[in-house]
Structures are given as C-alpha cells and as structure tokens.
C-alpha cells in the first residue's frame, strides 16, 4: 500500500467513524421505548387507584383507546381526603411521599407542588413512661443473614423483652403488618431494592389532591364509577368483562389494579381460571388491617410522635408540615392493633380506647381536651379491605409470579405487584402502572 492510498483509506475510515455514531443514533437508538408501536386495540383498566390512573394516563397520552372501571364512587384507591374535619387538608389514606428519587418526585418538582420534609421528633412509650430513646438498638431487622421468621419471633430471639412488644409492633406496622406475620428475611430482601430515598415528605395540601390534579384530572372522562367488575372471560381472542350492574365490555387487553385482598378473595371470576401458581402467589402476599383515627383536641398536650402504645403503636402530630390552628393527633394503627380496634364494632368505641391510652400517657389530658374524632377504617372499606401489601413468613419470591401477565391479555399492577422494592407506596403503584403499559405494548410489538 502506498502512502497516497493509505491516506485515502484512512480518510474514509475516519469519516465513516465520525458518521457511524449518528447513523447508529438515528437508526436504532430511540430515546424512548416502543416509539414505533401504534396500538389500535381497546384496553380496559380495572381500578382507579394510583396504578390504574397512571396506566390510563400513560395509555391515553400514547393515543391508545382505554377505559377505566372503578368499583367505588371515586378515584384514588387508598388515597383520599377528609374535608371539613380540620382547618387544614387531611389525607384519609396514604399521606407520605417516601423519598423524592422517584417518578412522583419528578412530577412534584416539575409541577412545583409544595411538600415539606417530615423530620418530627420521636418519643417512646416504654415501661409505662415517655422516653426519647430506647436502651436497646431496634435496628436488628436490617442486615445480612436474617432468618425467615416473624418480627415477633426474631425480637424474642435477639433478646428484646416484653417491654419492646409494641415498639416492634410499630416497626411491623410501618410495613402494614403485625409483628407476628411480617417476615424479617423477605421484608429486608425486598427493601434492598429501595432506591427512592429515606426522607419522608408531606404535602401542603394532600397526596390525593396532588394525584387528582396531576394525573386523575387527565383521565376522569374515561372512568366509569360504581362499576365493580365481577368476571373476566379471556378464553377467546376478545376478552369479555362483566360488571355487577349487568354491563359487558369487549376489549383486547385488561390491566387489573385492584388490591391484593380482592384478588385473594376472588372477587373477580376468571375464565379460564388463573394459573394455580399465580393464585398461590396472591395468597402469600400479605395485606393486613389498617386504620387512621384523627383526634382533635383543644390544646397540643402531646409529643410529635409517640411510639409503642399497646392500643395504637404510633400516634403522630398531624399538624406538622400543615398550615392551620387545629390540634390534631393521628392514631396510625396497623396489623393486629387495627384488628382489635375494628372488633370493638363502632367508631366511638375505637375513639374511647385510644383516649384511654392517651390519658394514661398524659395523665387524663386526652379526655379533658378532646373535641372530636374521625375514624377511617381501611379494613372495612368496600373494594379495599386492608392497608397495604407486606412480606409474609415463607412467602418466597412470589411477587414476580403474582405480577406476571397471563396469555398476553391480562396484566397485573398495584402496589402489592411492585417487584422493585417500592411496594406499599403510591409511587410504587405508579411504577407498576407504567411497567404494565410497557409489557402490554410489548405484546403488540411482538
């Protein structure tokens, strides 16, 4: 090869090298998934909670024909508001944004939605007195080589005495569970994927208002309310969905976003029946009882957070991060404590039980300063019947099976179907909403 020829070849290679990136970029490296998919089928979403709303919003934004069937009379699922009880906005359901490194953190930033960091102080009801710290470290439920036994059993194994019973109950309650049913191993393993951040944020308004304004408002025209789905026949190419009102819908794909309690209770009849492996996976995902009781007082005699009560393991000053004058204490009750209070049978009995406990902690000040209460019992709420999905002892890696699609027709979303560590959260539910839209459109791309 002579010098001239070599220079010519080198020039061609160099030009080719410079052009190659732009060729590759323009030909196969799209900036978003499924850009080339133009789906003309009809999609039905069952449930207008965070997952269903986001899936509907996303499909609608992509020009897909989509309809949402909601069993209750309102959207939001386990998000809601309590108008008029306090002089500041109240969440009846989910109220904390857990970390900002997630899709809803982006939406909050983009829409300039005001949120405040919730860094309120902790107090513990321990050995019949209020203290600001505990003698023993309770961070034993995180780390390596944890056994697949319950929080309750592990606490005993690790030498936490009976005086820690309700402290541990609060730790399990944070996960929507009882200490006797939450797995140390699986809870820890699933949380290893948690990447959204450890800080908790509260909305100046409510979580519901944020989801309502930024997501639900874009799809309310395609939601049919008071339409509980009773049956899904997916034996043929076209799926036939029936509701309690006698309505039927012929669609091509269905995204099911109802709570895991409803799937476990077979509130929807599938034909053919769902694979046994899948229903078994549903049964292994826990979802315990949960309620929020708002107690209004004339004065703020209580601490910001009181952990470890035997009736309620977590009392929280609801006014933190809010603009208003009312003194509101939230009893955040999960698991066995929520079951016990639900068994009392009435809101007034629940309120009395909580006031009695607070009277012991604050020497009669609760009853003396009590104005009113509002009980939001998620355990008895129709179409919900629980708090949020938790990791049971012996459950195994079943969320992937529970969330897997069936026959390229049925897709499963919702917080309990989150396989990337963000279950139990609103942003986790949203993630499953867009994940299943991607999975659905991929079946069309095939």
């Amino acid at each position, binding site marked *: 090869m002579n010098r001239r020829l070599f220079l010519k070849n080198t020039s061609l290679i160099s030009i080719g090298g410079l052009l190659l990136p732009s060729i590759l970029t323009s030909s196969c490296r799209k*900036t978003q998934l499924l850009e080339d998919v133009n789906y003309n089928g009809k999609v039905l979403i069952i449930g207008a909670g965070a997952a269903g709303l986001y899936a509907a919003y996303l499909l609608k934004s992509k020009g897909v024909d989509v309809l949402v069937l909601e069993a209750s009379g309102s959207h939001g699922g386990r998000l809601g508001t309590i108008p008029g009880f306090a002089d500041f906005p109240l969440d009846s359901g989910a109220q904390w944004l857990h*970390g900002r490194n997630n899709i809803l953190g982006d939406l909050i930033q983009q829409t300039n939605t005001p949120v405040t960091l919730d860094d309120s102080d902790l107090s513990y009801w321990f050995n019949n007195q209020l203290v600001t710290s505990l003698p023993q470290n309770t961070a034993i439920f995180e780390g390596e080589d944890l056994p697949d036994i319950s929080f309750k059993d592990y606490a005993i194994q690790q030498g936490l005495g009976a005086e820690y019973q309700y402290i541990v109950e609060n730790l399990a309650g944070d996960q929507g569970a009882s200490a006797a049913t939450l797995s140390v191993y699986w809870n820890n393993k699933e949380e290893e*994927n*948690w990447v*959204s951040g450890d800080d908790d944020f509260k909305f100046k308004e409510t979580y519901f208002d944020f989801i309502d304004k930024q997501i639900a408002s874009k799809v309310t025209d395609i939601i049919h309310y008071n339409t509980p789905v009773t049956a899904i026949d997916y034996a043929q190419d076209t799926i036939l969905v029936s509701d309690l009102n006698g309505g039927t819908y012929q669609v091509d794909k269905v995204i099911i976003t109802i709570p895991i309690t409803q799937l476990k209770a077979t509130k929807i009849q599938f034909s053919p029946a769902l694979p046994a492996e899948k229903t078994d996976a549903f049964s292994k995902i826990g979802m315990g009882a949960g309620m929020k009781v708002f107690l209004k007082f004339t004065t703020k005699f209580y601490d910001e957070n009181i952990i470890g009560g035997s009736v309620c393991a977590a009392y929280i000053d609801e006014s933190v991060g809010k603009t208003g004058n009312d003194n509101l204490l939230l009893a955040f009750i999960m698991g066995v404590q929520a079951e016990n209070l639900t068994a009392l049978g009435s809101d007034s009995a629940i309120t009395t039980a909580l006031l009695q406990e607070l009277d012991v902690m604050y020497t009669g000040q609760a009853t003396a300063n009590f104005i009113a209460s509002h009980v939001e019992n998620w355990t008895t709420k129709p179409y919900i019947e629980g708090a949020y999905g938790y990791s049971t002892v012996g459950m195994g890696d079943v969320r992937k099976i529970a969330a897997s699609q069936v026959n390229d027709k049925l897709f499963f979303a919702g917080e309990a179907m989150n396989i990337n560590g963000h279950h139990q959260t609103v942003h986790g539910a949203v993630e499953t909403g867009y994940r299943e839209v991607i999975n659905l459109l991929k079946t069309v791309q095939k």
Partner: protein
Amino acid sequence: MKYFCLFTVCFIQFGLFSQQIRVGASYSYIYSGQWDKAIQTYNFSRPFLAEQQPLLIHGASISGTYLFPSSRKMQHGIRLSYSYVRSSAENTNLTNILQLHLLSPGYLMHWKIGEKSLYAEASVSLLTSGLFRQVNDEPVSDDDTPVRAFGIGGLIEAEFGYRKLFHARNSIDPFIAVGYAPYFFSGKSEAVLNQTSGLTGRNWTGLLQLKVGVQFSIDML
C-alpha cells in the same frame, strides 16, 4: 504548582526510560443496552416531561499512553483513559443532567504494520465508572447521600492509527479505537437513570465504546 512540578518530573523520568509517550483526545461514542433501556423507560413513563432525556451516547475522552522500550516489532505499554459523557434535558422546573465518568487503566500491545506509519494496538483494561444525576444543578441526594452509581468491569480494546511525523521524534497520530466491556457491573445505575432497581433490567451491562481522535506522540529513544 507543586503538582505540576511533580507531574513534570515524573514525565521526564518515565520519558527517559520509555520508547514512546502519547497523549490523545478523542470523540467518544458509548453504547450500553441496559442504560439505554433505563433512559428509554424514564422517557416513556414520564409524558409530563416535554423534553426527553437524551441517551448516554456522545462524549469526549483523553488518554495517556506509555510504551516500554523494545527492539521487537511488538511493543507493550500501559495506558490511562478517561471519558466523559453527559445527557441533559431541560423541562419546566426540572433540568435533569446525567453525567458519566469512565476511567480505564490498562495494559496494551503495540504493533507496527508494514512501514512505520501504521500501527495497531490491543489492550485490556480495568474499566471503572461513576454515574451521577443532577436536578436543577443540585446533585440528587437521599438523606444527604448523593444518588450515584459506580461500576467496574474489564475492557478489551483494539486501536488503529497512523503516525504522521512532523518532527524527527514527534508525530500527530489520528486513530480509531473500539472497546468492549462484556460484563460491566453497575448495580445502582438504574437507580440513577430511572429511579428504580430491578424494573428495567439487570444490574450489569455490556458496554461498547468507539473513539475517533488524535494523539500527540513523542519518541524518547
């Protein structure tokens, strides 16, 4: 100033015992299927963001190469390369910037092809990375800990170049290089790119890097 003096002394010391020293700059093209998928998912899932996040594709690299003295046709040496890739999307109230830093120290073999002007090199390197996200010019942090992903893997690279002498011992060498890291582990990259872990794919990726640039060479012996 002391660092500059130290660098100069080291440069001269190394130079005295080397066959050749090169410093180069290049355009860098990056391809990672997993990282693409994470950013594509980010864009797909956020229709509220008008401006889409560009993929991590185009960047710049600098490198320093040191060839050991040898009378054989094949020489060997060491190289240190650094690449920087940036992706920025400016939306209302949310300017999202991804920054990827790649550093690869490695060992290389150098052949002269035919006459002295053309050369080929094959190298194996340790490839390390740092992937960072900034929102509105602030590093994204989780409880005061920056959200970032570090990566590690092995890189094999082939380079072809042409030595254009402009002085008896100095040359400007245009080159093209293709590198591939078949297993590049970066466990938290999805957390930076799509704010999830385990939703868009696995925690390792294959990484392809193409470089086109020039190097300035000094023959020492």
